[in-house]
């Protein structure tokens, strides 16, 4: 089980009305007055408590990966603020920024794309140590420790191998070890098992859970599959077109999703069971053009319950029992 949060005060992250808007179409379109804006993240607010794991759930284009990139300061927000330990992340510079980089890390989706194929495993893991100015003499021991942490048996045998000599599951553990080697407090895992075979996925998920608990990490797990999110996160935030639709305990969302979009997501999760519902999903086909989302509630044109108010008024995220829902029905 999770160790209790180390301190009960401030959350690790406070996200207030975060926005990330991209202008799409080049200079030429702008001259013709045809450029438009994609609101990848549009007014998202939540707090991440120390030691908490949150699943960011949604389909491609919902803004979940952009949100992760904002938290890691890989993108600059176009609005709102992101506070880490009370400090505004967008103001971090120089030394403070280097420290931030070491305290926050990313675990990539495709391990084969995330490492340099010409580097040995040793070089892959030494790079963050060098960047952080760890003296050379200490590298080998830290590298071996990190590989042990992710349960690669007899780590020494891997050090001089190249990425292509490892299986997907082994390499994903190396990617995880690289993210953990500087002992970060916060990690973002972006679909970390979607490229792996089913028989090895479980191993990687178990290592992720185990390491997180042992180190008391705070984590964001990004996925479109609620079954995976449920396995690693006690809290889930459902996103759609850059906005939060529902935010609450994962078990509550699994058993009784409130937002109509969450309902469709839950119903769509594939289950390895021969006896299952084949009813059509309670959602309209085809996501809208992100450059031109519907007025009011962004989900309304696919929502089976939409009514007049949904077109005219953007639903605010409101408390509904154990969670928050952005829907005029609640």
């Amino acid at each position: 089980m999770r160790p209790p949060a180390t301190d009960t005060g401030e959350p690790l992250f406070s996200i207030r009305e975060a926005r990330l808007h991209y202008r799409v179409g080049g200079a030429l379109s702008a001259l013709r007055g045809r450029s438009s804006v994609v609101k990848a993240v549009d007014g998202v607010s939540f707090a991440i408590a120390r030691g908490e794991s949150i699943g960011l759930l949604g389909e491609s284009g919902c803004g979940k990966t952009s949100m992760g990139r904002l938290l890691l300061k890989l993108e600059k927000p176009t609005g709102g603020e992101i506070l880490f330990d009370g400090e505004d992340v967008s103001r971090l510079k120089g030394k403070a920024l280097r420290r931030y980089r070491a305290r926050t890390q990313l675990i990539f989706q495709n391990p084969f794309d995330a490492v340099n194929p010409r580097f040995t495993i040793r070089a892959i893991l030494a790079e963050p140590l060098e960047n952080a100015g760890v003296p050379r003499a200490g590298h080998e021991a830290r590298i071996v420790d990190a590989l042990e942490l992710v349960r690669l048996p007899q780590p020494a045998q891997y050090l001089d191998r190249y990425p292509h000599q490892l299986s997907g599951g082994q390499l994903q553990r190396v990617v995880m070890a690289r993210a953990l080697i500087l002992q970060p407090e916060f990690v973002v895992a972006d679909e970390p098992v979607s490229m792996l075979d089913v028989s090895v996925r479980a191993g990687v998920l178990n290592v992720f859970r185990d390491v997180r608990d042992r180190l008391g990490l705070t984590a964001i797990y990004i996925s479109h599959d609620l079954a995976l999110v449920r396995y690693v996160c006690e809290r889930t935030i459902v996103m759609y077109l850059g906005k939060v639709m529902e935010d609450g305990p994962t078990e509550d969302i699994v058993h009784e999703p409130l937002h109509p979009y969450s309902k469709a997501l839950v119903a769509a999760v594939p289950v390895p069971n021969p006896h299952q519902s084949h009813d059509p999903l309670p959602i309209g086909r085809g996501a809208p053009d992100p450059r031109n989302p519907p007025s009011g509630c962004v989900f309304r044109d696919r929502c089976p319950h939409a009514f007049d108010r949904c077109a005219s008024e953007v639903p605010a995220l409101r408390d509904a029992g154990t969670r928050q829902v952005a829907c005029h029905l609640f």
Partner: protein
Amino acid sequence: MTETFLSVRDLKVSYRVGRGSLDAVDGVSFDVPRGSIVGLVGESGCGKTTVARALTRVMADNAFISGGRMLFDGRDLAALSERDMNALRWREIAFIPQSAMNSLDPVYTVEYQLNEVLRLRGGLGRAQARKRCEELFEMVGIEVGRLRDYPHQFSGGMRQRVAIALALALNPKLVIADEPVTALDVIVQRQILDQLRDLQRQLGISVILVTHDISVVAYICDRTVVMYAGHVAEQGTMEATLTQPSHPYSMGLRNAFPDLQGAASGVLTPIEGAPPSLADPPPGCRFAPRCPFSIEVCASVTPPQVEVEPGHFAACHRAGEAPALRERARHVSTWMAEA
């Protein structure tokens, strides 16, 4: 309905590598009953895509069929001349590729690409082809007005629908779909599977669905063929293979991924190790090195296909004890590495 319409027997497909060759598919046999969906399921490198490609005889340059037969409506696809085979492609056997983005040509409109198939392969006239394009778009649920659009103007799910329309253009009898929903989000995935099944029923076609995802098999398939390292590990009706897995590999897969309908507290259990290298496969059962139930004979003798129930086969020396092994396979400790 149970009439066999494709029958694959002892199929062997090899790849030339350096001076030698490796057998990616090594003695695979299965049947596709007319009007059914058969799921060919397994991990990367198990040979499932190689089987699918062999059935169309569109293979990598260094791949060749080195043995066996593929009887399709009475003809052996492995023995047909290239010319006769080409006459079957698209008209009788069609292929839906995994990544519709890569299979559609980005510089032509979708209508142009459909027309190419309809007119060159199908011999339709201009007016007939236009009518058929509209029919096909209606069938897969895309507005006819979008025929003139280019592939990049479609979303991933729409593109996969276009790929389905392309495959169905000339009314094939057999459609081979290679991971048709793998790259898609769960909601789109489900909608494409619904579409595929509706069309399959409506048109009475047979489908071979290649996938790594047992959930996809559970949702849509009538029969399952589980492959492991170039061999068939288990096959039978979808229900039997899922509810009474009789090969230790299939039993292991059941514990390996989360089930939203299951309890939250369950611990997932990986199958330790990795599939063997096909360049140098172990003697005997290829799953034996990862199998918690392996006994002496497994390391030396290739297991035969044992019929555990009528029509349900498992390639395992201990298939006779399947119910007892299934019980043991439920426990996490069974799958813990001994080392």
